[in-house]
């Protein structure tokens, strides 16, 4: 048996390659996890989206008529896709990272030479991957019910990725602080779900009274949903530039916090 190891500090190029392999490995592991438990990761959002389209789109939607100049089904489709992206990005990272903490296999990463920022990035990439997979599944469901125009494809992609990164980072921070499974589900249930439902997924805030419109503007999900909807339909309740600024600030702030906490080993190193 031969022994091979660094006899000197790794050169920058070799170090970069090693880190890239490590990053890819985290993503591959996350992908396998998503596929292994597909009935918990992919299926529920597709089923929920189908129910939303049937109930809100077909049954109730016909009574609502048009919204923002579009049929109701077409209007809510981007919001429902974004809702799935948000939930799944968050849930993937919070459950995967907390599961690794709980089962102690996070130590596999902690003893490895991968730096904290790369571990955070790997988990976030896993969240984005699941967000994208589920987002595409919900899009496929939506296309059974409605036509979906694409006005600005780059805006669609950018809004989806930035939103997914934001909520993946949120899930990561939640998992770092969580001490039990209850604390993993509190934020999705009591914060994420209300903010999503009140974030303009099912309606345009222009239909709300003035005070409610102003209140809605403090909900960051409103900006994400509207930027995404703008990419498809070309209409938005908020400025798209403003929405992207908020997303970029959220990503920068949350990423910095996650890396600092990971570096300090909050909740994972004694």
């Amino acid at each position, binding site marked *: *048996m*031969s*022994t*091979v*190891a*660094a006899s000197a*500090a*790794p050169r920058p190029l*070799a*170090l970069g*390659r*090693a*880190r890239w*392999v*490590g990053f*890819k*490995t*985290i993503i*591959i*592991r996350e992908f*396998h996890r998503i596929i*292994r438990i597909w009935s918990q990761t992919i299926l529920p959002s597709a089923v929920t989206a189908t129910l939303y389209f049937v109930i809100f789109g077909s049954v109730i939607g016909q009574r609502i008529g048009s919204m923002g100049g579009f049929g109701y089904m077409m209007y809510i489709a981007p919001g429902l896709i974004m809702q799935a992206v948000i939930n799944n990005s968050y849930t993937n990272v919070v459950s995967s990272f907390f599961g*690794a903490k709980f*089962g*102690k*296999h996070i*130590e*596999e*990463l*902690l*003893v*490895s*030479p*991968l*730096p904290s920022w790369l571990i955070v990035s790997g988990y976030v990439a896993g969240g984005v991957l699941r967000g994208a997979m589920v987002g595409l599944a919900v899009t496929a469901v939506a296309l059974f019910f409605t036509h979906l125009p694409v006005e600005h494809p780059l805006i669609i992609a950018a809004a989806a990725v930035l939103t997914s990164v934001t909520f993946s980072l949120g899930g990561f921070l939640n998992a770092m602080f969580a001490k039990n499974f209850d604390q993993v589900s509190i934020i999705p249930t009591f914060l994420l779900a209300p903010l999503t439902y009140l974030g303009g997924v099912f309606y345009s805030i222009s239909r709300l009274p003035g005070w409610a419109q102003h209140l809605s503007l403090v909900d960051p999900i409103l900006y994400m949903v509207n930027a995404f909807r703008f990419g498809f339909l070309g209409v938005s309740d908020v400025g798209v530039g403003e929405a992207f600024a908020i997303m970029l600030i959220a990503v920068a702030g949350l990423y910095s916090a996650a890396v600092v906490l990971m570096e300090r*080993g909050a909740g994972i*190193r*004694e």
Partner: protein
Amino acid sequence: MNALSVRGLTKTYRNGVQALKGIDLSVEQGDFFALLGPNGAGKTTLIGIVTSLVRKSGGEASIFGYDIDRELEAAKSCIGVVPQEINFNLFETPETIVVNQAGFYGIPRPVARERAQKYLKQLQLWDKRNHASRGLSGGMKRRLMIARALMHEPRLLILDEPTAGVDIEIRRSMWDFLREINRNGTTIILTTHYLEEAETLCRNIAIIDGGRIIERDRMSNLLRRLHTETLVLTPTRPLMEAPRLEGYPARLIDEHTLEVEVSKDQNLNDLFARLSALGIEVLSLRNKVNRLEEIFMRLVERGAAA
């Protein structure tokens, strides 16, 4: 060159427990080193700091000259660790676990797959490579953690109780395996509760107790310090009373078991001559306790009394 070097290492946990009280220790490259101590002595904390699972409160540590404060990535890439508790994903297969671990150390997947085959075969886990690891026996899980720790072919392998709960046959095959990788140049640090294991495998030893190193020596030197041993003899015929053997205190445990104390300056030929003179023939002979165990207990008891 030292594989491991620690100076003045201290650790105080948030609850105020001072687990390490200024540890100085060095382990030479190529050594097979035993780190022994009673439960709560600080062994796992020391390993935790070296592998970056525990944050130190003070002091310095380096791995093959890489300081863990300044060159942590390089230091970590030299270490493979087998922890005391099972810490792999029980829902993943052994092959996935070891291939992923190699990836975390920057080993490309094709190379990782080759190594997975090599180590899983050597540790008799290849047939189980595609089974969910939660279904493995305790011994298999321990071997899987050894395979995982070897995937990046580390220069320093740290084993924290690697054979706990493993049956004797598997344990002995693991000893052979560890001897082999040590012969091939990997430095090994072993903590174990099986002192026979440390005595059989290790060339150097440190005993840690109460967060301090209370002994550090070559294994052979330490064992030489033991002045008396108790031998357990099985006579060919039942005995009714303990024989009178001048200079050798003897005690009859039962009619088939005789215990005799032999000091370092006495020889066994003399003892057997005396037994023969009394018409006692001996069928078998063994040490009552492991020699290292006896020294270990004396040192730890002395430490507790101090």
